[in-house]
């Protein structure tokens, strides 16, 4: 489903360029639950952004379902992001002027669902991350972990084909982390969603099928787990 060949991403040019990705290659199949690990600054976020079409690679090839991403026009990328991809941002990236529910249901509205239906979908997703009661709060009125869970709810509400999650449990305690990971697992098993999750915590890998490890912009290990 996802094929990456010799993917490179440099920030800046010339001598001072930061080589965040130095040529990464792998394939991810539909329905896989993949963890991306690595030290801070190893290029995990950079990779995830490129995979989710939020950023462009400097060099290399990226095809998704046989489609060359670099040749996709912006309108199509936008549509793809809306309909196929869920993305949990490391820094939440919530709209400050929207309540938790609004942050989630704006996407269903964009997809053309009715207001009521959108609202129900949003509440359902917030319920999954344990935030149903706080659906009327704006991000400023939520804790870091709660914001993170709203970001997760936004990403999973539309049941995307591919869910990208950038350290979705960074600000959660063990109990909440487990709840979120269980939700991911359920989505993965029940709906066959492909999930690519960046994480630091070794115990998270218990939930996944495969662990890709980056080091300084290069892929250093790719371990298939047997379950």
């Amino acid at each position, binding site marked *: 489903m996802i094929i990456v060949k010799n993917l490179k991403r440099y920030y800046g040019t010339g001598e001072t360029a930061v080589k965040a990705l130095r040529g990464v290659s792998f394939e991810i199949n539909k329905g896989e639950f993949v963890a991306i690990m690595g030290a801070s600054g190893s290029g995990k976020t950079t990779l995830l952004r490129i995979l989710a079409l939020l950023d462009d690679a400097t060099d290399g090839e990226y095809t998704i379902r046989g489609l060359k991403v670099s040749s996709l026009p912006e*309108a199509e990328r*936008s549509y793809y992001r*809306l309909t196929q991809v869920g993305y949990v941002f490391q820094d939440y990236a*919530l*709209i400050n*002027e929207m309540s938790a529910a609004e942050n989630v249901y704006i996407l269903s*509205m964009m997809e*053309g669902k009715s207001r009521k239906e959108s609202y129900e979908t949003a509440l359902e997703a917030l319920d999954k991350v344990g935030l149903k009661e706080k659906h009327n709060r*704006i991000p400023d009125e939520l804790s870091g972990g709660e914001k993170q869970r709203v970001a997760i709810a936004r990403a999973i509400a539309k049941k995307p084909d591919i869910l990208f999650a950038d350290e979705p449990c960074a600000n959660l305690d063990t109990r909440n982390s487990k709840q979120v990971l269980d939700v991911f697992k359920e989505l993965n098993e029940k709906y066959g969603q492909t999930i690519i999750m960046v994480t630091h915590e070794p115990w998270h890998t218990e939930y996944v099928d495969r662990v890709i490890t980056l080091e300084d912009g290069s892929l250093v290990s790719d371990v298939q787990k047997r379950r």
Partner: protein
Amino acid sequence: MINDIRVGALIAYCSVKRGNKKTLMFIVFVLSLIFMNLVFLPSMIGGMTVLFTGMMQDYPYGDVVIEPTGDNTYINNADNVLQKVRAVEGVRAATKRLDVGASIEHKQKVVGVTVTGLLPTEEYEISRYPYIITEGDFLGELSRDEIIIGAAIAGTSPVFGEIYDNLGEVRAGSLVDVTYSNGVKRTYKVKGIMEGTFELVDLNALVHYKEIEEVYGLEESKATSVVVRVDKQGTEEQIQDKIREAGVNEQVFTWADKSESLIRQAMQSLGAIDVMSKFVSLIVGAALVLIIIYINVLNRKKEIGILKAVGITPGSIVLSYAFLSMFYVSLGIFAGLVLYFALMLYFQANPVVFYETMEIRPQIDPVLLIQSIVTMLTLSVIAGTLPAWSVSKESILKAIWSR
């Protein structure tokens, strides 16, 4: 497209509902000032125009004025014309006048003037001449050897002061010598001094109609103009047609026709100021609206990036800013209108005084108001969408994670 509108409206709604209220108030305040700037000066100029045209009606032209055709100096048989005119429905009053050139002399000082011969008793219904005598009395039916002179030539005008040549403190009761354009010389006693704070009045002199007839040896009721007042303002053009239909073969003008050339001259400079001020206000207004909305958009660059990142179409984002700025501008216009009408009320009660006695009351021009509102709204859409559009074209990474 429908989805774009729905989502755009949702974004705009949320950002108004939860956005900073102080910022909103400030933006609305500035926009209201911009609106005021668009409509206030034109209203004042409108007030001046009304004042000026009012003068035209009250003194030289009435509502409708009949003048001799072609090269003729006089209307022949003005009484016949008057008879026809007075029979026209909607005519309140009419009178004839004789305007001639002359010079007035008093204690070796000489001033050129227009002397108007009129029928004093009829003028009460026609003009304001009888009501602006500041010293002495207006002419009577039997006035001969008597003259009314304008304050500017008398030298008593507090308004025009020394701007024009004058006779130097002529008072009611003084004797003046008038030499008419045909050389005839008469001595008159000044019966009164009139003050209209208007050059066409205060540089003028009035005598009885019969005086001019006699001096120029005119017969059969000649006149240089027949001045008509109508029952209802605004019916001038209908009356003008009716008078023509009644068989008056002289030239018939409405005061507007008449003042047009005069006003065009007098107002040309004013009009130019008006146009320039509107133009400048518009440019300044457009720039301000643009800047305000642009700053607003820049402040939300990150949000725009996020919205794009999660798949909200650029169309919805741009629309949301169009809605937002339309909302700001509507509030601004509303506040501006409140401010404007408050000021209008104030100036109606306390008119701006020019030349000490000319009271200028600003005029509310609905067409101008509508024009300004439409202009502001159009501007707001452009000002709102352009910056949003340009930001929405930026890469997501840049919009969200850099400044």
